[in-house]
């Protein structure tokens, strides 16, 4: 159910902006800089992937964008409004265990919709059940679903509250590699129908090149933006095309990995 909320965007055409974003954690009296000077402009409806060495602060960036932690310096704004706390307009999707095991598929998708009139709520649940292809599992509990189905459910629950921005924190990281490939094309299909702005953290280079409009490469801690790579291949992308391999190699080089094992 795409709703055009871009009309409220003041002038600049960017959905989400991070300006000189810095996060410093205080732990045992030590100050650990997690993020430093992150400036990033994300257009409405853009698909951004964030990659970087493990532990570099990718999730921290996502949490700051979601309003789950307040930055030490700088700011995050969405539609020109500063992000000060969690909000339904931007939903964070976790790697696993994100769905509520005590609720059915329907209950999970309808979780954020309790203030809607019954008929509308049911209609919206049905819409998203169909979108993530969980028809026939409406009454099933998460424990009866496969890992891939659970992640689809989590995405459906996030989309159901009609957010502007989806923040995905390695959402397919716990899935087997075949399911992961299927989930990527599912997510692309959903993104193409619903056109939300997506920030997708991953540690999988191929995932980034297959999905993103732009890939943000973070350096090791404290994370700075090392490079922003535009993936100029239209969907559907052929993963053996020369341009794909070129961009993939470029990304590997950026992260500092060898091409031969």
């Amino acid at each position: 159910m795409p709703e055009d909320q871009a009309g409220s965007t003041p002038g600049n055409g960017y959905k989400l902006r991070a300006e000189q974003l810095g996060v410093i954690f205080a732990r045992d009296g030590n100050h650990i800089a997690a993020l430093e000077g992150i400036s990033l402009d994300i257009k409405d409806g853009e698909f951004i992937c964030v990659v970087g060495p493990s532990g570099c602060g990718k999730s921290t960036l996502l949490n700051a964008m979601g309003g789950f932690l307040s930055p030490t310096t700088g700011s995050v704004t969405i539609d020109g409004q500063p992000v000060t706390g969690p909000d339904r307009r931007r939903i964070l999707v976790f790697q696993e265990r994100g769905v509520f095991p005590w609720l059915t598929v329907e209950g999970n998708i309808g979780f954020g919709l309790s203030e809607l009139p019954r008929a509308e709520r049911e209609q919206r649940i049905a819409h998203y059940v169909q979108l993530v292809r969980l028809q026939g599992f409406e009454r099933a509990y998460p424990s009866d679903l496969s890992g891939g189905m659970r992640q689809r459910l989590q995405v459906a629950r996030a989309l159901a509250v009609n957010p502007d921005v989806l923040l995905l924190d390695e959402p397919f990281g716990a899935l087997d590699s075949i399911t992961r490939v299927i989930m990527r094309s599912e997510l692309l299909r959903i993104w193409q129908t619903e056109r939300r702005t997506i920030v997708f953290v991953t540690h999988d280079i191929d995932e980034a090149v297959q999905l993103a409009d732009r890939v943000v490469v973070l350096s090791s801690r404290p994370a700075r933006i090392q490079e922003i790579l535009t993936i100029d291949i239209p969907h559907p992308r052929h993963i053996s095309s020369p341009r794909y391999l070129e961009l993939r190699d470029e990304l590997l080089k950026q992260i500092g990995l060898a091409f031969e094992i």
Partner: protein
Amino acid sequence: MSDLKSPRAWERIFWPVAAALLLLCVWHYAVVLTATKVFPSPLNVEKAIAELIHKHLLWADIEDSLRRVAVGYIAAALVGIPIGLSLGWFPEAHQVVNPVLQLMRPISPIAWIPVAIVFFGVGDPAAIFLVFLASFFPIVVACAAGVASVPVLYRRAGRNLGLSNFALLRKIVFPAALPQILIGLRIALGVAWLVVVAGEMIAVDSGLGYLVIDSRNSGKRYDLVLAAMLMIGVIGLILDLAFRQLEKLKSVRWGFRHAA
């Protein structure tokens, strides 16, 4: 347990029954061989149960015991669940109360019997108070631990989807902690049943516990003692099995390993 096959249906019934019969045989011949005059054989106990039923004593005692457990236990749940949930929800409060809680918890409810009698005199309220105390602590501790161990991801997802504090407690924290709360309630019910028998031996003059002690005191009727003990065991088992049915509810089943 070395083979991977699960036992066949008839084996799952046959072997436990065989073990029980063997135990009864050992008991029977031990009584016969030692020619004891005091200790009853299984047959004597069976006759004693028949006698109790015939005199309509058993049902009255069972009813009294169950009533005391029901009142004390339900009161403990009504008071203990909100307190436990609050303690889990407010870690500061938990820090303040926890030392007292941990001090009170290992005190056997039986040690409270004199206190109960001072407070309430000999009678129903004293026994109910003991049941209340015995169930209260496991319930509080299970609720507090259950709430405290709700994965932070669930709370975050709830806040992200727009829940305020109270709604978060009601719609996320409580259902997420429910399996652990149920475990606490089940433990509490078991303890309550243990304690009511002990309490009835001293603080009242009816119930299965009183039946045990009265049968011994008035004429050393050990056949009645064992009959009462057997009933206590059977009823305790039924209570536990009945409670376990709750764990099969779909909305909590995820929290119990055996149903995975």
